[in-house]
């Protein structure tokens, strides 16, 4: 076998390229050895950590459940037992991973209970001082930590934090902004939507859905005026307001909706037609009918859906004109509408065109 000294000498005699290659290989081999050993210990440590976490979770779960079922008849006061349990959490909440488990248990419980029980859980969160850690997260430089902090304050409805959350309503990260918006809506209902007056960044569809769902969870509330948002310069605010108008049947904004039919953004115009269809906006029908040829294809399809719902016998000539429109959807809707207002005429057309390329669609509509 070659002596180490000889290997070194041989190495020194190699051309530079080979020296670099062997040198790199040596570095890679060292990296492989380190990573292999590290992976083994890391996996073992992770398994141990998971086992510890499971043990701690079981212990905390049983304590929290005990706390929940030790409630006095008077919900304003905590029982002695509950106070003892809260004291028992004083130390664990100082440890990050234990705190994470406790919050996770509380989240799970919150999603399973409601009413008085949910208030008792929130009281636990507050009395143990967990909220202070959530507030502390708001000071973090990491956006994801801030997001998690706001999420926690929202779930446990810590209204006292609203001044601290407010600055994040216009945070550059969409995720943080969304959490701040949800916090406001979750705690202040429609009043909390006032951020829509000033928001400059676009709201994603995902954020809009979350806010709408949060609003729907809130009981007894007074709806607010959405006209200002329907006229917003922020496209996403207009689209969001249109969703509000549809979900909350805002018949009083029909006039503003009519104005939106000539909005420069096509998506907004299409959505507006859909909302008007939902709100039986009969006044939109004549206007759209008159401008039909100037509409985009998507608007034309939406209009025919509106017409399907609001058709009157005097619309027959218009419908008849589009019976064999080049777009399949419009063709189908037009035939359905004609059948509903004038069956005889529909059957007559069906007989006339029995052998044409439209016979399939006619047959299909006939069988509906």
């Amino acid at each position: 076998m070659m002596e180490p000294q000889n290997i070194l000498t041989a190495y020194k005699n190699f051309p530079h390229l080979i020296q670099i290659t062997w040198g790199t290989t040596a570095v890679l081999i060292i990296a492989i050895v380190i990573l292999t050993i590290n992976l083994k210990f890391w996996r073992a440590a992770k398994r141990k950590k998971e086992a510890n976490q499971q043990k701690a979770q079981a212990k905390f779960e049983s304590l929290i459940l005990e706390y929940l079922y030790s409630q006095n008849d008077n919900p304003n006061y905590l029982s002695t037992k509950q106070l003892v349990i809260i004291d028992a959490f004083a130390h664990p909440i100082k440890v990050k991973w234990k705190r994470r488990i406790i919050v996770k248990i509380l989240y799970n419980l919150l999603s399973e209970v409601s009413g008085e029980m949910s208030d008792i859980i929130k009281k636990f969160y507050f009395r143990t001082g967990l909220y202070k850690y959530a507030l502390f997260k708001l000071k973090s430089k990491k956006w994801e930590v801030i997001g998690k902090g706001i999420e926690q304050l929202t779930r446990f409805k810590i209204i006292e934090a609203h001044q601290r959350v407010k600055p994040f309503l216009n945070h550059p990260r969409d995720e943080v902004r969304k959490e701040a918006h949800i916090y406001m809506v979750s705690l202040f209902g429609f009043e909390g939507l006032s951020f829509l007056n000033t928001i400059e960044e676009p709201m994603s569809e995902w954020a809009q859905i979350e806010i709408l769902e949060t609003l729907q969870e809130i009981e007894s509330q007074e709806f607010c005026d959405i006209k200002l948002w329907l006229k917003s310069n922020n496209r996403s605010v207009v689209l969001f307001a249109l969703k509000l108008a549809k979900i909350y049947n805002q018949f009083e904004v029909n006039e503003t909706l009519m104005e939106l039919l000539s909005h420069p953004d096509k998506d907004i115009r299409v959505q507006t037609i859909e909302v008007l269809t939902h709100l039986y906006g009969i006044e939109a029908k004549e206007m759209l009918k008159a401008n039909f040829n100037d509409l985009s294809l998507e608007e034309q399809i939406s209009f025919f859906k509106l017409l399907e719902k609001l058709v009157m016998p005097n619309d027959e000539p218009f419908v008849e004109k589009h019976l064999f429109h080049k777009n399949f959807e419009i063709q189908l809707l037009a035939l359905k509408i004609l059948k509903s207002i004038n069956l005889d005429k529909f059957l007559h057309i069906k007989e006339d065109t029995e052998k044409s390329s439209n016979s399939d669609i006619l047959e299909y509509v006939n069988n509906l």
Partner: protein
Amino acid sequence: MDTSTVNIILKILHYLFFGFAFLAILSYIVLSVISAKESIEYLKKNSFVNYKDILSSSMAPTITIIAPAYNESLNIVENVRSLLSNHYTKYNVIIVNDGSKDDSLEKLIEAYDLEKVDFIINQKIKTKPLRKGVFKSKNPAFEKLLVVDKENGGKADALNIGLNISKSKYVACIDVDCLLLEDALQKMIKPFLEQTEKRVIAAGGVIRIANSCKIQGGRLLDINLPKNLIVQSQILEYLRAFLLGRMAWSRLNGLLVISGAFGIFDKEIAIKVGGYDTNTVGEDMELIVRMRRYMEEQNEPYLVSYIPDPLCWTEAPDNYKTLISQRNRWTRGTIETLRKHRKIAFNKNYGAFGLLSYPYWLFFERLSPIIETIGLVYFGILLALQEVRWEYALSFLVLAYTFSVLFSLVAIYSEEFTFHQYKKKGNGFKLILLAALEPLILHPIILYAALKGNYDYYFNKTKKWGTMTRKGLATA
């Protein structure tokens, strides 16, 4: 030719091989770094996501799952049940029975109480005609299900009829034999809904290997490493490809392929570009390239997104014959797509798509096996002429091997730090051992399959899909 000319040619060849290997290694390092960044960003973003709202919202978009089936009688009933048990509420399932010769349709009719319904299809994309028609269930429990029985036209044709029928804004195209986890749709739809500046035209997910995993009632109960070395090696290969490669390309918005096993598409764009190409065996890659090309030509900002969560599990080939057939098809698909869209190559009008993604695929996916083979042949010639300079050859060979082991280790680390699916004791050691063995077990086979794919593409034009004999996913 005199000796000096030969020497110059040889020198050029040496530099070309060296340059190619250097660039390949460099690209892998860069992709690993980018993918690490992207994975961390993804985990941060998803550390406080609330999926509950999207499940209950009336404003959530509808998704149509399109699953083509051809002679899947063995598992079709179970597979459909799995597709019907997703947590997402606003979705429906279209099973396209693509002219199966077995009793798939009869089994579906019996299991789901199906009846033929009147149906009209808007032929936005031309497809083969219906055979027995369209079926819906009489049982309201299966109201999400629609079964279409059509004449055989291949997977692309079956997916196209699904695109024609779907009324949803988004379509999820999946292989019927894949196991889709219950939370797959809500996670996959998120990129489409959270983007405000760019239009997400497609999103792909990680495909994981389900051989040896325990599955019951369409649910994944237990994840195991299979004993079969070929399957094990593919697990490592998939980890590298999905957790390192695609994750990084997603960050660069340069993904050229979304696995045909599971992907969600913006239906409007998919239809505008004409749907799946029925004349290629790589229809999944071809559609993405065509959609990207369309968006670039329209000058519309867009994204092809990617989700690293293990959402879709599939059965991998467990023998060399099937594996070679599968990789042969993948190679032919890549060649067909790259040739068809060669206009994009090095074309600055297509931005990073033309200057980065396409060239990468051309050199490191399409040409890589050919260059490697030329290198091997050249080495063989030098060996025969006793002209091998062993001090160089050996050092390069050892370096290439150690780098490949290290790269696999990085993929294993990526898996451990993110989704940690192979939790069982001993799995870590097996994966490391595999990192050392895989270049010797799987790589030569893949190289052979790629060469065969090249041969078949140029000299055996009649070859189409090839067969994949499925054994079915293990049930508990």
